[in-house]
């Protein structure tokens, strides 16, 4: 990761933290669909990132997000888990022929089908941990599960929309 890349990632980190913490912190649709857009930052880290660094970044972002939600440790635990799983998941769903150096985990570069297989399970795991650790037991099991399900969809849609809004699809020479 060169210097320019690092600065761009740092900028993204702050932007996602700010948007999550101050703007869509309490955005809830129909009482069940929560939006944790900040997960996008973690999912969009480079494909060839080293193994350890993303886990540490996930921890830092999680703890900062937890400060806004007064839920110390919950988002951090979920982020660390998905960042650990991410490196293996990327290997498992590798397209035939492997990854090219220019590839980023975005719907534009990899195609929508790949992005759904990549992002949806990771978002689901993240939300599963966040909601079930928050409630701390299984007393409202199906209510919580419905929250996980709808929030996963909502977060995924938001992440994709933001991707198409912010990043202009680039012409790639394949």
């Amino acid at each position, binding site marked *: 990761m060169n210097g320019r890349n690092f600065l761009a990632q740092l900028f993204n980190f702050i932007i996602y933290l700010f948007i999550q913490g101050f703007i869509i912190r309490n955005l809830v649709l129909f009482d069940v669909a929560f939006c944790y857009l900040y997960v996008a930052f973690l999912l969009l880290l480079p494909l060839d990132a080293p193994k350890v660094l993303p886990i540490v970044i996930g921890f830092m972002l999680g703890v900062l997000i937890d400060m806004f*939600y*007064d839920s*110390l440790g919950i988002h951090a*635990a979920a982020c660390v888990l998905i960042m650990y799983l991410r490196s293996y998941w990327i290997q498992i769903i590798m397209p035939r022929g492997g990854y090219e150096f220019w590839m980023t985990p975005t719907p534009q570069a990899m195609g929508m089908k790949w992005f759904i297989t990549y992002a949806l399970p990771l978002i689901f795991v993240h939300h599963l941990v966040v909601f079930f650790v*928050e409630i701390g037991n299984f007393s*409202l099991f199906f209510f919580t599960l419905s929250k996980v399900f709808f929030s996963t969809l909502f977060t995924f849609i938001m992440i994709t929309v933001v991707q198409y809004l912010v990043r202009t699809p680039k012409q790639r020479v394949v």
Partner: protein
Amino acid sequence: MRRLLSFLFNYRAFIVFALLEIFCVIFIASNTSYQETALLNSSNDAVASVMKVSSDISNYFYLKEVNESLSQENSKLRKALANRENASMPQFFWGLDTASSDSTAVGASVDSILIDQKYAFLPAKVINNSVRRIKNSITIDKGARDGVKPGMGVICPEGVVGKVKYVSSKYAVITSLLHTDMMVSSLIKRNNELGTTQWDGREPSLAKLMYVPRHIDIVKDDTIVTSGYSGLFPKGILVGRVSDINIEDNATFYDITVGLSTPFSKLAYVYIVENKFKSEQDSLEQQFIRIYER
């Protein structure tokens, strides 16, 4: 040694992952102790001051409702001031009509003097609030330098709000009544029967009144108020009204739903309750517990 190092290196991702998860579990488990974690929550200066800006902007759109609620409270206070001679003022203050306590006017005025000495109220502005999660919290703009301490009760003109959890120098975080671990010792106002109000995590306007045995007389629309036994809130602060009563054939306790009187989604100003005798009450009760544990 070399083999050990290469082993560690091969499994470095897993080791880092496990270590950080252990940290997280420690964080989550220590969530109840407020001293050491005071930095990592929304009472933190940097987080709270930016939240304050965003709440100042969004509050602008609720000015009308806030004004209405404050002017209603004002008129209530004026009435209370006029009735100060023969009525129990704090009860009048915090959402209770005194018509029913006229018969015990002497007792009430003694009560009122006691409550005046016992409790102090500190106004604060809400800068962050949530109602849709399972464990909701509220951040306010008063902190340790204004005399706020963890464990103090918080009320608003309409009723009970919660309990102070974290405190930084300028800000504090409140465990809302809409937090599934929060319990409020409550009374049925009509017959002074005891129960516990706790939120079940579903509707932000409904809570459960628990541990009311089946021989107790309770009807729909009964008023539920705080008991004052824990010293967290003064006695008689409004909690809500009974909206639904159920009982299974062989259950010991009723399943009572209470419509909360506090409009949690619109909170703008709250009052922190300082109980000046709280430490005295606690130390006395501790002694009692110690004697009977022997």
